[in-house]
């Protein structure tokens, strides 16, 4: 009775058209022209910014400053990584900045006031983020308040919560050595090389295995050259980064030696890999994209759309908590400004600059890293050039607007070329 319409094997065994390197490049260019620009603007922007700043301020290109970029951009990048999930399902979280502030306050109070060990304080801070996300998500998905309003209210309320937690604005010092290490210590140079080698080997293994499996089953793949070029590019990029970071950057090595990959780098890399895996390889990730692309279609496919939306807020606020911990570590302290002022805008900007769409359904974890790098470079470079905060805000605002404009225009272009 239950009838699978039987396959005609003759049709199935037609081998997929072999794609040449040239064909692959042409396909990519066609997609870009069709409005599917992905992270191209972020990569180009990053290159242009780095070249310009290096010419105008040669110190920009020093190993010391390169290492600085990581600790400057880390918190924003981590918050942006969480925002990608919320943006993916077509929502927004304006409170992510102050969520990180609340969680950082929890961390600082547990460490400094109550003397808990670092792992309990960190766990409590992360948990606080998770709970906040669950509440926000519930209000959006179940009660039905637009996320813009829910998180705008939370933005205001959390600002107050931070003040209350910090007793009207005292500054709490964070001195726990493990927490401080997160943003301030470096890996031993050898460990940096080992991690880079492991990362490249693992990437190569995954990519080649996938290529072998798919060609073995007669499925279309990217050409082997492209796979090898990707692996090579990663090896070169990681190798260069580790090499530069392992250069001595202390001005006076008699006082202290300063070299190695900052501890925060493998933390960000680990989370990047985790969330990329979740988004690309798991049914849950697929359902996030589906919910953002067409929530009615997702619902009809039997996906629990409410649960997906709540989970996006949970992940976002949890990542904001991680960002707050990193910020507290970097500043050695928590004050009412932690996670405040422009943190949220930088984070949303980072996600959007990296290629995540404000319209939902399009975004990747790596967008946060790319966009976070752009934001960090702008702040850092303009700082080196001695611009005032006023000008920095104006420029960052303009860059965010530019990124959102590119997002909107590429969407229109895609709609026009039937590539929506």
């Amino acid at each position, binding site marked *: 009775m*239950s009838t699978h319409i039987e396959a005609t094997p003759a*049709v*199935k065994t037609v081998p997929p058209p072999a794609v040449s390197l040239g064909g692959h490049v042409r396909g990519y260019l066609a997609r870009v022209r*069709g409005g599917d620009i992905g992270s191209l603007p972020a990569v180009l922007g990053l290159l242009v910014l780095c070249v310009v700043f290096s010419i105008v301020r040669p110190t920009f290109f020093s190993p010391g400053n390169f290492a600085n970029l990581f600790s400057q951009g880390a918190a924003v990048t981590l918050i942006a990584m969480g925002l990608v999930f919320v943006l993916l399902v077509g929502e927004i979280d304006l409170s992510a900045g102050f969520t990180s502030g609340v969680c950082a306050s929890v961390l600082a109070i547990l460490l400094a006031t109550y003397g808990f060990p670092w792992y309990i304080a960190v766990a409590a801070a992360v948990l606080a983020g998770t709970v906040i996300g669950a509440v926000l998500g519930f209000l959006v998905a179940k009660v039905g308040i637009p996320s813009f309003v829910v998180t705008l209210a939370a933005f205001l309320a959390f600002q107050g919560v931070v003040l209350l937690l910090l007793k009207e604005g005292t500054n709490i010092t964070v001195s726990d050595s493990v927490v401080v290490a997160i943003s301030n210590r470096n890996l031993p140079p050898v460990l940096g090389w080992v991690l880079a080698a492991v990362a490249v080997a693992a990437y190569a293994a995954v990519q080649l295995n996938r290529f072998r499996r*798919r060609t073995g089953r007669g499925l279309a793949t990217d050409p082997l050259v492209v796979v090898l070029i990707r692996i090579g590019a990663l090896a070169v990029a990681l190798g260069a980064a580790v090499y530069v970071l392992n250069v001595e950057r202390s001005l006076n090595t008699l006082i202290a030696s300063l070299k190695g990959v900052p501890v925060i780098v493998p933390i960000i890399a680990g989370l990047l890999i985790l969330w990329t895996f979740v988004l690309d390889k798991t049914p849950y990730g697929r359902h996030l*994209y*589906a919910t953002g692309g*067409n929530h009615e279609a997702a619902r*009809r496919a039997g996906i629990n759309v409410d649960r997906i939306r709540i989970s996006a807020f949970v992940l976002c606020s949890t990542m904001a908590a991680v960002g707050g911990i990193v910020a507290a570590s970097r500043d050695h302290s928590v004050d009412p400004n932690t996670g405040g002022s422009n943190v949220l805008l930088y984070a949303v900007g980072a996600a959007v600059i990296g290629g995540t769409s404000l319209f939902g359904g399009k975004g990747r974890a790596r967008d946060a890293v790319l966009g976070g790098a752009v934001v960090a470079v702008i702040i850092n470079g303009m700082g080196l050039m001695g611009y005032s905060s006023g000008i920095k805000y104006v420029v960052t605002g303009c860059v965010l607007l530019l990124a959102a404009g590119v997002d909107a225009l590429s969407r229109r272009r895609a709609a026009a070329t*039937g590539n929506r």
Partner: protein
Amino acid sequence: MSTSPSPLLELSRINKSFGPVQVLRDVDFTVTAGEVTALVGDNGAGKSTLVKCVSGIYSIDSGIVFYDGEPISINGPRDAADRGIEVVYQDLALCDNLDVVQNMFLGRERRTGLVLDEATMEELAAETLAGLSVRTVKSLRQPVSSLSGGQRQTVAIAKAVLWNSNVVILDEPTAALGVAQTGQVLELARRMADNGLAVVLISHNMNDVFAVADRVAALYLGRMAAQVPITEVTHAQVVELITAGRSGDLGLPAAGSGDDYGLNGARG
């Protein structure tokens, strides 16, 4: 048809209102395996609503759904899918940002452990499309947004067929298609029925209906005017059933018999 097999899906006295507007009124409807049942009716007659009641998108206010003779309750899309009831919606319900394979398996992804089994899904999708003799979709990995209307319709139908379905309901599948693509989709519907599926074809194109249907059911302002074998009616009779709810002995009792069903969205 001559053996009059027992119906696979039978709806009995289904009622459905949206607020004050009663869209379905005591609707009876039967669907038989191996047949194409055409469901016809004017715009707003309630065809799509009836389908959504069967597929669990809407809950019914009253009435019974029998499946294979057993009364069943359908509380969500999963319940219908579990019974092998698949719907290709008028608005297709595809995710533009996902590719063909991802759409076909949406909500029912194959996995190995935690991880999506992309290769198997891609193979099964290719098999299904091949089984439907679909040659129009070039790459299974292109986003659905880049497909033409006919290709999207094909993907949506293939998605419904993929699941060992027993009942496939097509809601106006040819409304947005050109002549050639319409022919392909109708052929597809016929082939599915010949393979033993119960196919429901919603349409208000008489040519489509008479080309493939075994049986025709006409909805008129939310009420089932008649459900008859296609061989027993003419074009003109079906058109009358659609526009007036009755044709000769067929259809709803003549108006003026006391109750004026003025509510069905046609008030005023």
